[in-house]
């Protein structure tokens, strides 16, 4: 019997773990990532060309990651495709079993002559991760305003620091590692601002403390970052946010203000801080375009929409498994456990194998941790109070808040699609990846509808539906695929 072929998309903590267990189960594995190296955002590696002798200095759990990476990439049944983007998933006819066909482009990002290939796997594991969610504020479009993830990627991935007087702001524990990497790289962090008030954070973290014991590794990691902040005497405040960035052609100062529990601004509490960069995050958005393209059902939660999976990480779509941040923002340990489960089952392993018991347990602990995270670091309902009519909401098309309000309150254009066309919000090059959740939330609020629920009569995932998941050039499209690697194998 020929071993099943498993394609794993994404080589971060979840994808790498999936590849490893699929190999253990006996499968042929193709591991795909758009980066040159495995690791994803969490274990973002330095380029080989840097010839770093102590890469572990920048990484948590480097040794275990490094061992797994070597084991997987050197495995005779594993094919590693770096610099590879999945640009489309093609669903098969209903009577044909199996996951969708995977169309990829191999070569330098957005290059003109990448190789176009096609895979027809027996199982597909999606582990594509998440990116920063960022709420708009006046001036957030100025150069020098970065997502926290950008600052982290530049510092860890190529040793570039975004500035020398930096404010790190937003909500969630991710603020800490970002500030710590900036400090490690020698910049001065002027302040770390958590928008939620102490009471919200404390309530979220202190309930059912026994659940936290299981996340001792994560807690230790956070304690280390906190120690770094104390050592560098970085002022850390809760209930405070960046509500405006100002500058001539680039950010020069930020206005911070005290927030109430619901994130409404306390009048008169504004302060100005001179900066050369500001890094902001308001949590993470899962990258849902591939799961949606595959036809996977989503589930709504207070933290937004995620891919719905069963106890074995199966999605609603036959042969398609999901793991990591696309099923819920639960951190690297949970992502690894989910990936390991998904890979094992996708590779033909027995879902009842006793060894899976501890994986399921650590996945479930990770999910409990995720729920806590949402309770401790919610986005306050009154956040939009800091928007002004002229504040840019869609960065690509420069659609401002006033135009969105006008389009939404105009009944004739109240359907999301129509509003999109009228304002152009979400129609720019990023295809609403950045502003989509914000526009959806503002629209629902302005129409007085409940949040987080899909609009009646429309598919749940409208904002994530992109027929072309990643840019492909017309020349590449016209050229046709080179060959089908696993047909010739």
């Amino acid at each position, binding site marked *: 019997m020929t071993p099943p072929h498993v394609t794993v998309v994404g080589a971060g903590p979840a994808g790498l773990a999936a590849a490893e267990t699929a190999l253990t189960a006996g499968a042929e594995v193709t591991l795909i990532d758009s980066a040159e190296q495995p690791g994803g955002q969490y274990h973002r590696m330095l380029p080989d060309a840097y010839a770093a002798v102590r890469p572990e200095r920048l990484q948590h759990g480097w040794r275990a990651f490094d061992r797994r990476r070597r084991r997987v990439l050197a495995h005779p049944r594993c094919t590693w495709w770096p610099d590879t983007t999945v640009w489309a998933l093609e669903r098969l006819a209903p009577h044909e079993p199996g996951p969708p066909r995977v169309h990829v482009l191999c070569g330098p990002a957005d*290059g003109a002559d990448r190789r176009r290939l096609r895979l027809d796997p027996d199982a597909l594991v999606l582990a594509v991760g998440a990116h920063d969610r960022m709420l708009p504020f006046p001036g957030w479009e100025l150069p*020098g305003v970065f997502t926290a993830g950008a600052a982290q990627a530049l510092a860890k991935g190529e040793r570039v620091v*975004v500035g020398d007087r930096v404010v790190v702001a937003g909500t969630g524990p991710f603020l800490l590692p970002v500030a710590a990497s900036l400090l490690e790289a020698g910049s001065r962090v002027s302040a770390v601002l958590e928008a939620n008030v102490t009471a919200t954070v404390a309530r979220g973290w202190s309930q059912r403390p026994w659940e936290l014991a299981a996340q001792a590794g994560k807690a230790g990691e956070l304690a280390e970052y906190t120690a770094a902040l104390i050592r560098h005497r970085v002022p850390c405040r809760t209930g405070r946010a960046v509500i405006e960035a100002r500058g001539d052609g680039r950010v020069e100062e930020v206005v911070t203000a005290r927030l109430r529990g619901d994130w409404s601004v306390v009048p008169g509490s504004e302060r100005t801080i001179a900066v050369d960069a500001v890094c902001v995050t308001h949590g993470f958005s899962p990258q849902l375009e591939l799961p949606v393209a595959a036809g996977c059902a989503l589930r709504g939660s207070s933290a937004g929409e995620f891919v719905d999976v069963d106890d074995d990480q199966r999605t609603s779509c036959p042969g398609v498994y999901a793991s990591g941040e696309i099923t819920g923002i639960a951190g690297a340990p949970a992502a690894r456990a989910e990936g390991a489960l998904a890979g094992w089952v996708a590779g033909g392993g027995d879902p009842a194998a006793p060894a899976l018991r501890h994986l399921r347990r650590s996945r479930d602990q990770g999910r409990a941790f995720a729920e806590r995270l949402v309770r401790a670091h919610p986005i306050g309902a009154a956040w939009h109070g800091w928007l002004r009519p002229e504040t840019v909401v869609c960065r690509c098309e420069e659609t401002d808040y006033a135009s969105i309000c006008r389009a939404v309150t105009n009944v004739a254009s109240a359907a999301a699609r129509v509003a999109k066309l009228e304002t152009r919000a979400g129609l720019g090059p990023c295809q609403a990846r950045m502003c989509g959740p914000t526009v959806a939330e503002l629209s629902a609020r302005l129409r007085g509808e409940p949040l987080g629920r899909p609009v009646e009569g429309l598919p749940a995932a409208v904002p994530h539906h*992109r027929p072309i998941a990643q840019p492909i050039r017309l020349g590449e499209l016209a050229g046709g695929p080179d060959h089908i690697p696993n047909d010739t194998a």
Partner: protein
Amino acid sequence: MSPRRVSAQADAVGRRDRPLLITVDGEAVEGIDGQSIAGVMLAAGRLGWCRGVSGAARGVFCGIGVCFNCLVTVGAERDVRACRRRARDGDVVTLQSRKPSTPGTVQESGTEDG
């Protein structure tokens, strides 16, 4: 001050830099092998390099290929995400603008035609 690269001597990871040279709108910009085009431009003190629809400057925002705010032309290839593309010695980078050149026409970036 502006973004900068941690100096190799001071870097705890112990790296060995191999310099490379690209041109940005004709101006020579030095980077090191392994960097992204965005990293090279940031470390050279450039923050905003493309122009949005109103002509306002944009540069790196998400850093991981999601926001498309960092688009540049590399050689003959338009709309390359600078944060995702490795710089190669000799790359010729040209800056882009989405600002309509004649009133009423929007110069589309054309990456996502589908």
